[in-house]
């Protein structure tokens, strides 16, 4: 049985949705089956995001530990797998503090507003073939729009906490988010252009050659930009623990802190999934009909590992250097990448407006050269601007103390 309501909805592309819908529809009225099927899918997705956040917390701590020749959490469960649950239980039992003078409503809204876009983002990610919740035809646009909500949430957190450190962190985070949005969007534009679609499912199908090979520079820019937007090292100024305690979530405790942490680590997972879909070919791979989810998880894991690896290795940049890095290095690179891709697509595409695998291979060869050359050129340009930015020391006369001449 089919009813108009279900077959029209964006959810109908989802295979699991169809299964549940048909099962429920066999003995329930049409509208009820429609609602139940939707709720089941949403329930699965919400839990998948939160569980994914927990697994990433655990994985990050374990892998970071091994990077540092430590073991990491290993007390709870096999390999410490239950550590996030123990953490969660501990945080649930903590007192939910609210600082004096805080804006009560905004303060309480923040954790919700941080987790919500994350769950919304998962709606458009294709986990495997026909396993996308909503195959939006403006998927990339949707991702960009929804992910910017988190900057509002961060600023709300900073503002409502009535704490200077939180305000510092929030101001830094918003500055970083806004300036990194531009190169990220520009790098995604290339992807959309090559795939000739904004739907994530179509982008995956267009990747006969993974886009990381076709547009390595766009991937680099996307990775750097996303690690800045997620406040990950080396761009983690918003919560630089040695400078401003914990940044915008300084005043949060208990359940709210747990939610903010979940949003942060879940953000890593979701962004990695998006990167895997856009650049690494998503669920495509050998036997992708059946093992698509495995390829997808594997590629997501690789990107998560990259984030952890950067975090283990690099010190933090200063806020002005981060802005300089964005505007002086990433933005030109993304523009060059975009220009190169535009020209290539213009000259290479066939009459139907699509690119063949051979075209993609040619683009990959050209773009590899372009990437190396422009990274070297702009790297050297920014080097002169940033490292040699020295300042004359301030001379302070010490009264009563003679200055000794030093040869």
């Amino acid at each position, binding site marked *: 049985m089919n009813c108009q309501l279900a077959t029209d909805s964006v959810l109908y592309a989802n295979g699991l949705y169809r299964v549940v819908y048909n099962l429920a529809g066999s003995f329930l009225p049409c509208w009820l089956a429609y609602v139940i099927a939707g709720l089941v899918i949403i329930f699965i997705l919400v839990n998948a995001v939160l569980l994914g956040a927990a697994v990433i917390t655990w994985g990050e701590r374990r*892998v970071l*530990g*091994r*990077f*540092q*020749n*430590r*073991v990491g959490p*290993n007390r709870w469960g096999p390999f410490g797998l239950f550590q996030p649950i123990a953490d969660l239980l501990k945080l649930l039992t903590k007192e939910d503090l609210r600082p004096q003078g805080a804006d009560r409503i905004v303060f309480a809204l923040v954790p919700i507003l941080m987790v919500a876009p994350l769950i919304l983002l998962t709606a458009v990610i294709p986990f495997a073939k026909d396993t996308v919740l909503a195959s939006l035809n403006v998927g990339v646009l949707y991702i960009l729009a929804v992910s910017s909500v988190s900057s509002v949430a961060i600023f709300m957190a900073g503002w409502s906490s009535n704490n200077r450190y939180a305000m510092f962190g929030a101001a830094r985070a918003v500055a970083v988010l806004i300036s990194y949005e531009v190169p990220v969007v520009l790098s995604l534009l290339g992807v959309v252009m090559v795939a000739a679609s904004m739907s994530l499912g179509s982008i995956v199908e267009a990747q006969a050659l993974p886009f990381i090979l076709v547009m390595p520079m766009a991937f680099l820019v996307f990775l750097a930009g996303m690690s800045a937007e997620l406040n990950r090292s080396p761009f983690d100024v918003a919560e630089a623990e040695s400078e401003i305690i914990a940044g915008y979530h300084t005043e949060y405790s208990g359940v709210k802190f747990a939610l903010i942490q979940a949003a942060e680590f879940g953000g890593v997972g979701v962004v990695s999934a998006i990167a895997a879909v856009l650049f690494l070919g998503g669920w495509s791979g050998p036997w992708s009909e059946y093992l698509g989810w495995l390829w997808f998880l594997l590629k997501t894991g690789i990107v998560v590992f990259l984030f952890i*690896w*950067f975090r*283990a*290795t*690099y010190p933090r940049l200063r806020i002005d250097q981060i802005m300089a890095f964005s505007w002086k290095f990433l933005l030109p690179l993304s523009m060059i990448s975009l220009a190169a891709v535009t020209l290539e697509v213009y000259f290479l595409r066939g009459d139907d407006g699509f690119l063949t695998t051979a075209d993609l291979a040619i683009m990959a060869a050209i773009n590899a050269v372009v990437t190396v050359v422009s*990274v*070297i050129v702009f*790297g*050297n340009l*920014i*080097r002169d601007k940033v490292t040699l930015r020295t300042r004359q020391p301030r001379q302070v006369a010490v009264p009563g103390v003679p200055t000794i001449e030093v040869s």
Partner: protein
Amino acid sequence: MYGLAMVKGLMVTLKNLTRKPFTVQYPEERVRQHPRFRGEEFVWYEERCTGCASCAKYCPLGIIKIETSPSGSALPQGDKYRLEVFDIELQRCMFCGLCVEACPYDALFMGSGFEQGQYSRKNMVITIDQLRNAEKHPSTWFRPQLEGYEGETSIRRGTPTIAQGDSRFTYDPRGGPPLGWREVGREAWRWHQREKAGMRLEDSPETPETVGGEATEPGADD
């Protein structure tokens, strides 16, 4: 090229990812303690202790409390007193080992224990009964002159690594070869006697012949 060092750093961390962790998972694994370890555990040798309270005097914090009464049975060591009170306030102890170093008869040692956490400060005081009933009996630990060497007095030169058990090491804080563990008390005691201005005994090796061997036997293990 700019950025090369950052890639190098990534390689360093990647290399360390494959390495075995250097941390020790404490309750399951333990690090090997070296023989000189100054632990939170006092091992008292009652037969050797004369109640001279040198340890109490040298203790920088004054946390050792000793009360004695004259003993009826005088041991060959001479002024032997019976100990009534021997309290060590562990909560203030800083484990410098000066009491052990000060003891002229080597009657006090610091063991290897370090898990003496208590919930009350009252329990942190070690009393004479606890010392008597301690799990660990006096042994040859801690006293550096006990670590034997095999004969010759030469020292290692150069850098080549030397196998374990090589005899070319020595140390000898006070001159002369180290003694076996049975004779430990005598050696330090002799040194202590020499240090005293009014020497009661001649500086001959045979004088305190009855101190070591028989008297020390029951308590000694390892």
